[in-house]
Each structure stands twice: as structure tokens, then as C-alpha cells.
């Protein structure tokens, strides 16, 4: 008999729930299209339909995500309603000022992520399951506040002026929030799937770093101000290119942090087999598999994002590939992970070297994400520090 050391949570929901959820997404899409069908163009209609399908898919077997989506939708709509057409209410309306204006929602998100990290680490080191669960709860709340922040910010940009309005994925500040939210969602997905909360603190560590950077960027540089889009960014492509990219970045970060946990565990297993890390972190092969999963997911979405970027470039810059520094670094990141995947799939490498490589991969990714904007010049007029 094979040894059954570990089971995956296949986590399917009752059929009735699945169909109610699907029906809800269908109803939402239909409602949107009947209300606004006349002002939406073909592209936007496609996006609405795809978003509904995507949400229906993500939520059908994932209870946490269903609640997240519902609460985000309800609170965002509530905030939009509170605003009416007066942006100034952000400072005077109690609910907006303290909870739901994009700025406060994002501050909540930041605080909650930091608290979640503490809870996860406490859970890990004090061997407290309760604290672990608090970590999960805080992370879900943070993700929800972050998502609400983005949604409300989207609306706020239109309240400034209809011609300023745009989806909040257009500058460094906004994508940092996107990064935190997406990475946390990816983590939550695997946390449930692999039934382990022990990795939470490690993943929340990168997220917290992003959050701290974002706070500095807000208070040090006033980057939270909504700016109108420069002409180069006024494109439909941006709306899918950027999120796809951040699924990639998020997954690569996740893989790297699992790599860190992996190395810590191997290190402690040899020095102190009864230590917290050695006993409480998931089994090495499980982490190894998880690392592979995350890199595969990142690779798939990064491929998609780079290709979408090429399509966009072909429309905006006069060529699908210009060897612009950002593009080139995307290629470098991509080649690096392609090599990683081959090393693992076809040469069968496992364990520590691959964990180290995943960590190095994060630095390469980080350079493509931030370093290029900081140190190199090019066509990506995306944001500077």
C-alpha cells in the first residue's frame, strides 16, 4: 500500500451552494449588462462576462472566496452610494472617513496584514492553533479591505472628473496594493488546499514588506494621490496586462517564501529535530511540490502577461517587441523560471538547490518589478520613485 502521509483538501462545496453561487454571478452579470449595456463597448462587455465566469469558477469550491467577493461587492457599492457625487465626503462622512474611502480601506488593509503576520508567526512559534486561525481571519479581512480600497479608488477617480477616471492599476502605488492582495489570495488558496497555516508568516513577510513600502510611498511621497493617466497608459490592454503580471509576481514571491521555509526546515531538522520549524512546517516534499505549483502558476500567468504586453506594445509603440528594459527584464525573469522548470521536470532536481533558486528568482523578479523603474530608463513611463 502506498503510504498516505498527507492529504489534499479537495474541498468541494455542496452542489446547491455551487449552483446558487453560479446563479448569483450570472444574475450580477445580467444586471450589469441590462443596466449599462448601452454605454459599454464590446471590450467591456467581454470583460464583464469573463469576470463573471472567473468569479463563478474561483468561488464554486472555495467558501472563503465567496464571502470575500460578496463582502467586497456589498461594501464597495455601499461606499459608492455614500459618496454620491461628492468626493469631499471622504473627509466628513464617518463611514467613509474611517472605513471605506479608498485611503482608509487601504490603511486598514496595511494594518491587518501586519497583524496577520504577527498572528501567524505567533501561531507557529507558540504552537497555537488559535493564533494561526486568527492569522487566516486577519488575512482574509485584509484582502477584503484591500480589494474594497481598489474598488472604491476606481470610483473616486471618476468622481475627480470623468476624464480622470481609470482602473487603479496604473501606477506604482496602486500596483503595490494589487500585489499585496493577489499574493495573499494565492496564499489563502494554497493554505486551504494544503491544510497548513504554518507558512502564513513567511508569505505575509513579503506582503508586509510591500505594505511598508507602500506606507512610506504614501506618507513620504504622497503617492496615494489619484493622477490622471498619461496617454500611453490609456488602453484597454492595461486592465488585463497588469493584473496578469501581478498574478505572476505574486506566485513567484509565494514560491520564494516557501523556499525560505523549506531551507529553514532542512537546516533545523539536522540541528534540532524537535524544533518548531522542523516539526510544524509542512513536510519537505509537500513544500517542494507547493513551490513547484506556485512557480508553474506564476510562469503561466507571466507568459500570458508578457504576451498581452507585446500585443499592447504593438498598438502603442509601433512594435510588439522593442527590447525596452522592462520588456527585456520580463524576458529574463521568464527565461530564469523556464530553466527552473526544466531543471525540475526533466532533470529531476528537487529540494534545497531549487529552493535557493526560487529565492534568487524573487530577486530577479523584484528587479524587473522595481529595479527597472528605479535604475533604468525606457518606455515604461509607469512610475518612478
Amino acid at each position, binding site marked *: 500500500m*502506498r503510504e*498516505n502521509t*498527507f*492529504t*489534499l483538501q*479537495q474541498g*468541494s462545496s455542496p*452542489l446547491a451552494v455551487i449552483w446558487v453561487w453560479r446563479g448569483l454571478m450570472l444574475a450580477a452579470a445580467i444586471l450589469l449588462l441590462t443596466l449599462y449595456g448601452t454605454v459599454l463597448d464590446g471590450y467591456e462587455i467581454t470583460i464583464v462576462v469573463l469576470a463573471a465566469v472567473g468569479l463563478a469558477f474561483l468561488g464554486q*469550491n472555495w467558501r472563503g472566496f465567496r464571502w470575500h467577493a460578496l463582502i467586497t461587492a456589498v461594501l464597495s457599492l455601499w461606499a459608492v452610494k455614500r459618496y454620491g457625487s461628492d468626493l469631499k465626503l471622504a473627509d466628513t462622512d464617518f463611514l467613509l472617513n474611517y472605513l471605506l474611502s479608498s485611503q482608509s480601506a487601504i490603511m486598514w488593509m496595511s494594518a491587518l496584514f501586519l497583524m496577520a503576520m504577527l498572528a501567524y508567526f505567533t501561531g507557529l512559534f507558540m504552537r497555537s492553533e488559535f493564533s494561526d486561525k486568527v492569522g487566516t481571519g486577519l488575512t482574509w479581512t485584509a484582502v477584503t479591505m484591500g480589494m474594497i480600497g481598489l474598488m472604491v479608488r476606481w470610483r473616486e477617480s471618476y468622481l475627480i*472628473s470623468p*476624464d*480622470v477616471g481609470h482602473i487603479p492599476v496604473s501606477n506604482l502605488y496602486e500596483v503595490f496594493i494589487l500585489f499585496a492582495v493577489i499574493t495573499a489570495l494565492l496564499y489563502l488558496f494554497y493554505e486551504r488546499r*494544503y491544510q497548513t497555516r504554518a507558512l502564513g508568516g513567511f508569505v505575509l513577510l513579503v506582503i508586509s514588506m510591500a505594505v511598508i513600502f507602500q506606507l512610506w510611498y504614501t506618507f513620504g511621497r*504622497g503617492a496615494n*494621490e489619484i*493622477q*490622471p493617466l*498619461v*496617454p*500611453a497608459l*490609456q*488602453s484597454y490592454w492595461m486592465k488585463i496586462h497588469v493584473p496578469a503580471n501581478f498574478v505572476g509576481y505574486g506566485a513567484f514571491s509565494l514560491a520564494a517564501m516557501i523556499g525560505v521555509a523549506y531551507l529553514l526546515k532542512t537546516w533545523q531538522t539536522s540541528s534540532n529535530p524537535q524544533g518548531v520549524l522542523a516539526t510544524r512546517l509542512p513536510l519537505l516534499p*509537500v513544500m517542494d*511540490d507547493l513551490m513547484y505549483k506556485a512557480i*508553474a*502558476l506564476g*510562469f*503561466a500567468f507571466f*507568459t*500570458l502577461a508578457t*504576451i498581452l504586453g*507585446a*500585443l499592447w506594445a*504593438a*498598438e*502603442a*509603440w*509601433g*512594435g*510588439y*517587441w522593442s*527590447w525596452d*528594459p522592462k520588456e*527585456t*527584464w520580463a*524576458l*529574463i525573469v521568464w*527565461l*530564469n523560471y*523556464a*530553466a527552473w522548470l*526544466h*531543471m525540475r521536470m*526533466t*532533470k529531476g532536481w528537487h529540494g534545497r538547490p531549487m529552493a535557493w533558486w526560487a529565492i534568487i528568482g524573487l530577486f530577479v523578479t523584484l528587479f524587473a518589478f522595481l529595479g*527597472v523603474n528605479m535604475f*533604468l*530608463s*525606457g518606455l515604461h513611463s509607469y512610475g518612478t520613485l
Partner: protein
Amino acid sequence: MSRPSFARRLFSFLSTMDLAITLLLTLAIASIIGTVLQQNQPYPDYLLKFGPFWFDVFESLGLYDVYSAAWFLLILVLLVVSTSVCVFRNAPTMVREIWQLRTQVQAKSLRAMQHHEQWTQSSDVETLTAQAQAYFTQQGFRNKVVARPEAGETLISAMKGGMNRMGYLLTHLAIIVICLGALLDSNVPMKLAKWQGNLQVETRDLSISKVPQESRLAVGNHAFRGSISIPEGKSASVAFIGLEDGYVMQELPFKIAVKDFRIAHYATGQPKSFESDLVITDPELESPLEQTISVNHPLSYRGYTIYQASFADGGSLLTLKPWALSQEIGPFDTAFNTKVFDKQATAWGSNAAQLEITNFRVFNINPDPTDDEPGNMRNFGPTINFKIRSKTGEAREYENYMLPVPRDGRDYFFSGVRENPNETFRYLYLPVDDNGSVAGWVAFVGALQDTELVDMIAAEMATITLSDVTTEKGILQKNLHNSLAALVELFLRGGFSEVGRFIEASLPEADREALGAAYLAMLREMLGRVYIHTLDQPAIQTITDLNDEQVFFLQDAVTAVGALPLYGAPVYLELTDYTHIQATGLQIAHMPGKPIVYLGCAMLIIGVFLLFYLPQRRFWLILKPEQNGCNLLFAGMSNRNPYEFDSFFDQTYQQLKQAVEGNFDPEKRSESMT
């Protein structure tokens, strides 16, 4: 045993994974170079940066255009070859794997598999086989029943996700397809033509008609990406392609005329859109094609795509009024007309030889200095940029604002100056007089440079200052008179710093502090008196008679005069009128490889997702009759996601068990789904 032939060994070397991984990483590292060193810059810039020795070394390595350097292309070609060989070797197996069910397996090997179960059932083999097969079919498995009379058993082989192997093929073929398509669109053919001597890179700045035949590319189906700047109201039917340290000129089969170029702004002043109204005339068209393009919205026509890439001045018409800042040239007040990009000889002063207008902008959106929020922008109105080139060839560049700019509650005309393009402008703030003009300040400069006038005022001031002195009055007065005139001259020559230097040099250290302050006070008094003279208001006799506004004006005027020696121009050029003519910068691309590349991209995306998210799963069931029923041996394997397969196998096993008993209900999707 003979050694395999060289071709065989090469073939297997090319398909090794080690080579593939090495190439992937080498390509990644090589790509870094071009992101660190800015590519395709003018060669003189590189020369300046690296010096002649390294400039040559880097040039021979092709580092100024790494991505089309021979060695870089070689890595790419090797990667493509390696991938092709790899696909070629694996394709037959992969294709077979997509469809083929494995029916050769023996019970022994199934028992050796990590995932297997064995149990007994009381029904007969035929019923069980039929029910199991129905189950597999219903669950979407391809399957096949093989009777093995020799072993007295029946095998069902089932499989799902064979398309995973198609994913492998698509992913790797995509790499080849994309690279081939991109090769078609690259500038490699152009470089080859140059190398064969069929194409000459032009480095001179020539007008279109003067570009020699060897540097022209006729209309054809080759790929290119070029650009051209067309002023409003003008047209062109060529594009310039940057190549090495110069360009070649591509002819187009149609003519592009620019009717209008527009920039729209947001309320905050940032640019909102750049648009050009184009008219395409082509013998193949019945009537001209009119279309507006903007950033992100190009025009595609006959396989050519025309993009809004940039904009520039298109030779705006300007009226300039020169104000003399030097006695040498005397006053003049006749405005003259010129155009942006014009160069003209001047007669200003002994050394200024040529005026070159380099740019004109209608809007200058800068942070508002009167606002606390640094982010708030303001439009400061039109500017002109020009160079004044001396007879020896050196040029200073100037930037003059047309409208007064407020700073700390007062208005100034700004004039920036810099010696070379890498510096930022240093600004001269010229105070605006009561009439809103620079005339008041120019008059002050003129008066200070009028030695007779200064002399007269110095004498006057000396007399008044020494009116109470009785002894040796004549000599003292003479000395003071001379000193005052000399101070003004020093000030004109080098501002307060020159005066300071003079004080350092000529006064004994002990007296320096007291006397120095006295000197500066006297200089200020002198400057004030000269200013009062220019006012021509008899009621005002001394500095104390000046009103606040005049005192401020005097302060600013003095500061500006003190900075004049650094300004270095013999005139201040005031922009009095303009007609704005813009030029739109178009990029024109012809990319015949694009559909191929896009096909490759589609293959890549589909391939990658198939590879990662469609696991290939195989199951086998061997049914062997026993005394009182049938023994079933069930086994399965998957080529990825081992952990997911654990539970998938369990679930399939449970369902199959129910199914062969005839009580599996697919509607009761208990814990199905993955």
C-alpha cells in the same frame, strides 16, 4: 562497437537538457547588457562616455545594439535549434501519447505502482467489465477493453488528459514559431544588406531629397520600423530608420499629409491626449483616406501601421524684440520675425555671431510656486529656446518666458541660461515695470552702463556726502567720486562678488569689516540714485522717497544686474508674437512577421496551460475470474500533481467500486470534482 557518427553526436548534444538550460540562462544573462547600457544612442555620446579605446572595443562587440549583434543572435539561433531538435526527437512519442492507451501492462507491474487497489466482487466478469467501461466512458476517459485469453483475464485501459502532451508540443513549437516570425521583423536583413554593400548608412543631417540612393530602401515587403516628423500642413512619403550611427531612408507607397496636431490637457495641466489628423493619398485609393490617430490608436493601412509617437515644433513663426544689455550695441527697439529652427547672423556686440532658434512651446506646465501643494501645476505660458553662438563657435542656450511669472507676490520675466545641454537652466529674474514691460529694467541697465551719467551721479553723491566736511574737501571729494564710479563698474563687471573680491584685495584686514560695509552701503546708494534717475520723477530725490513697490523693484533690478555677467548674452530677447506650428512625430512600421508571432503566442499560452493544468491520468483495471466471482486489480498513475492524484485515485477507486456493483450515481456528486 563503432562510435556514433559526428552528425549523430551533434544531434544528441543539441537535444540535451543541459544545453537547453545553459542556453536559457545564457540568453537571460546576455539580455541584461542591453538594459544596463542604453541602446542605439548617437555614437558621439558613447565616445564621450567610454573614451576612444573602450568605445572601439564595445563597438566591435556590438554592444550599442546588442540585440542584433551576431553573438547574441547566435545564442538565440542555438536555442531555437536545440528546441527544434528536442521537439523533433520527442514528437513521435508525444503524439502517440496523446491518443494511445497502454494495453501491454501486466498485473505484476500494476501491483508495483504506487497507486493500486485489489478486491473481489461476486458478479461475473462480463457484467463487471461492462459496468466499469460504462463508468470510465461516463467520466470522460478514453478507454479500451482487451481480452487476454492466454492469461485468463480482461484488461480495461483508460486515460484522460492526453492533451497534456499536446501542451508540450505547442509550447516548444511556439518558441520556434515566435523566433522565426520575429526574425522576419528584425533588422537582420538590413544589416546583411549593409554588410554586402547594398546599403549605406547615412550619418549627415540631410533634407529628404538629398539623401543618396545607396541609403534609400525602395518599397518592398521587408520589415522596418521608422519614424518621421511632419509639420502641420506638410506631407511626406518616407520614414527614417535608425541604423548604427546613422539612418537609412525607407520609401512609402503612399503620401501622409498632416492636417492638424493637437494636445489636449486635463484640468490639472497634464497632457491627456496627442492626436494627429492624417490624410493618406495613394494612387490605389479613389479618394484620400482621412483618419485621426492618437497614442494607442494607430492607423493600419496596406500592411503599414502609423503611430502617434511624439511631437515637436514644426517651425513656428515668432516675432522677437531684442533689448540691448550692453552699451556696445546701443539701444534698438525694432522687432524682427523669425522661425523656429532658423539660424541667422546677428550684429549684436563684438562676439555674438549667430542666433539659432531651437524650440518654442506654447504651454509650460510647472509646479506652482505660489501654491503650498508642490503637486499643483500651473501653466506659465509660452517659451522660446535659442542659442547665441559666438564667433569662436561656442554657444549658450537660453530659455525665455513670454509672460511674467509670479514669485513671492511679484512678477518677473524669466530667462534661463546654460552652457551645455546636460545642465539645468539657471534663471535670471527680470523685474516687471509699471507698464508690465522689461523696459524699466533695461533702462536701469543702460543707465548703469552710461559712464558719463554714472560719473555725474557719483560727483553729485560725493558732494552731498561730504557737504559737512571742511578740510581737504577737494581731494576727498575727488577720491570718493572716483571710488563710487569704480564701484559701479566693478559691480557691472562681476556683481556683488566682484565688489567683495575687490574689498578683500584692497583693504587692510583690520579695516575690512567696517570699511567693507561702508563700501557696500555706498554702492547701494549709488545704484539707487541711478535708478531714481531713470524714473524721471522730479518728486523723488532720495531712496527714502521711493514707495514700497519701487524699493522692491530696485532690489530685484540690482540682483538681476549682479547676475548679468553670468548671463553672457548681449541682448534680452522678448517674444512679442507667435504663430504656433507643430510637427507630429509618426512611427511607421511594416511587420510581415507579426501574424506568425501572434500565432506562436497563442500556441505558447495554450501549450503552457495544457502542460500545467491538464494532468495526464491513466488507469488500468484487470479483471480475473475466481471461484466465487472475480478479482479486480485497479491501478493508476499521473504525470504530474502527485498529491492531487492521491485523492483523485481514492475517489476514482471508490466510485469504480460502486459502479461495478451497479450503484454509482453520478448525479450524487458526493465528493467528486477536483
